[in-house]
């Protein structure tokens, strides 16, 4: 995906979110660290443009909730959760860059529920690359990208990496772990 593709997908998803929720009342966006956070801000900006409404945006760190802590070599560095609004009764749209096995989303739902009891949790992702290991699906998808497990989907964003792009790469070696793919 090019920067232009990402921009269009973001705008479309923002429309879909508002349409599915039938408005913006009680809606909030929560980005998953790290690249879900800027994506959530972009979706909020698009909603502001389309609807003239400021939707609350938060950031969620799922490090403490991962189920693969025993598999990674070192403790992942915690990047911080920042949810400055009350989750109770709201519809929360989780935002992430890549949907892969579904384990990150499982962890994110656990983390979110520790902060309150949302009315509903939805999921928006930029890329769905398949290979789910849990019964999880996205409500809003920027692009479905069929991949093999040997490939890595590399998402870069202006805010975190200096440029917008989605690329598919061959996994360099068995030891490597796909950075954003989870």
């Amino acid at each position, binding site marked *: 995906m090019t920067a232009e593709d990402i921009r269009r997908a973001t705008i479309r998803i923002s429309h879909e979110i508002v349409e599915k929720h039938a408005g913006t009342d009680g809606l909030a966006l929560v980005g998953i660290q*790290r690249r879900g956070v800027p994506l959530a801000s972009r979706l909020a900006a698009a909603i502001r443009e389309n609807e003239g409404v400021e939707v609350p945006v938060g950031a969620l*760190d799922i*490090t*403490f*909730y991962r189920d693969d*802590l*025993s*598999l*990674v*070599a*070192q*403790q992942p*560095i*915690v*990047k*911080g*959760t*920042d*949810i*400055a609004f009350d989750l109770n009764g709201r519809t929360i749209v989780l935002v992430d860059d890549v949907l892969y096995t579904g384990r990150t989303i499982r962890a994110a739902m*656990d*983390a979110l529920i*520790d*902060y*309150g009891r949302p009315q509903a949790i939805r999921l928006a992702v930029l890329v769905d690359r398949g290979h789910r290991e849990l019964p999880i699906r996205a409500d809003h998808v920027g692009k479905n990208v069929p991949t093999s497990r040997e490939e890595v989907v590399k998402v870069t964003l202006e805010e975190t990496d200096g440029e917008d792009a989605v690329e598919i790469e061959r996994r360099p070696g068995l030891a490597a772990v796909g950075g954003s793919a989870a």
Partner: protein
Amino acid sequence: MTEGSARPGGAVAGPVHWAHRHLLDVDALTRPEIELVMRTADEMHDVLARPIPKVPALRGLGVTILFYEASTRTRVSFEVAAKNLSADVVNIAAASSSVTKGESLVDTVRTIEALGADMLVMRHSVSGAPYLAAEVFGGSVLNGGDGWHAHPSQALLDLYTLRSRLPGGSLEGRKVVILGDVLHSRVARSNVWSLTAMGADLWLCGPATLLRGYDAWAARGAAGRRFTVTSDVDAALRDADVVMALRIQKERMASGLLPSLREYAARYGLTQDRLRSAKPDAIVMHPGPMNEGVEIAADVASGPRSVITDQVANGVAVRMALLYLLAGTRRTEAGA
């Protein structure tokens, strides 16, 4: 969630990796590693501010707390920290264990490991005992205080408290005075490493009999650490940014080191009067437990400059951070 979310640096974690399997003292920690502990403790602080202060990060891990010496805050704080991370905690008080039947430290540690402990938090009256335990234990050993030697988690929580209280959060060039029974204090010994690592202007002050060895150590270069050793309490306190009073350890005090507690209180006790020569916003600390009226006056301990209760509260966040970071290397060692 809290004011902490706006912290600069919270999101820009550098590529520091934690490579220590054990935490026996802070002398082995580099400044970036100490910063990593501080940043991780910030996150733990946010977890503690939640309605349910519990995360599943250490689910399934066994943490055994083995204390051969009395303790309230360190033991309870490690236990609360481990439980907040969803670890399974076992508490052993040496007084009611097979230690009283003559079991050796090595055998006790092997037994604890065989019973499923992944991490061992221990306190022992003999300096160096956790180093011996670390040689035989397959998991991670955290030193909860050994003899006169080291108390790394206390030094790190002191640092965390200072960082949150000092303007700008930096110790660089700040005058920090450790006042009192430096000789018998493992807290002081560990704080020398962590405070100098963070760039503080460190002063150790007390009666000459309670500073023994530090002069010679400083003269030999103290492994590249720089600090000032003095018995002149007025010089030490002048324009100080931080004053940490240490407990007079009566139980470790061989006779003859002090004429009397009353004389100590008169000459070295931290009183409002003495504190006036420090900076107006100077911070007062004490690792506890306190002998009020001896090393610190009651009105200073509970005064507006005192951060003593912060120290206790921050202990849980810092110990959660340490358990979390050490758990990662334990798994690496296991080859997972």
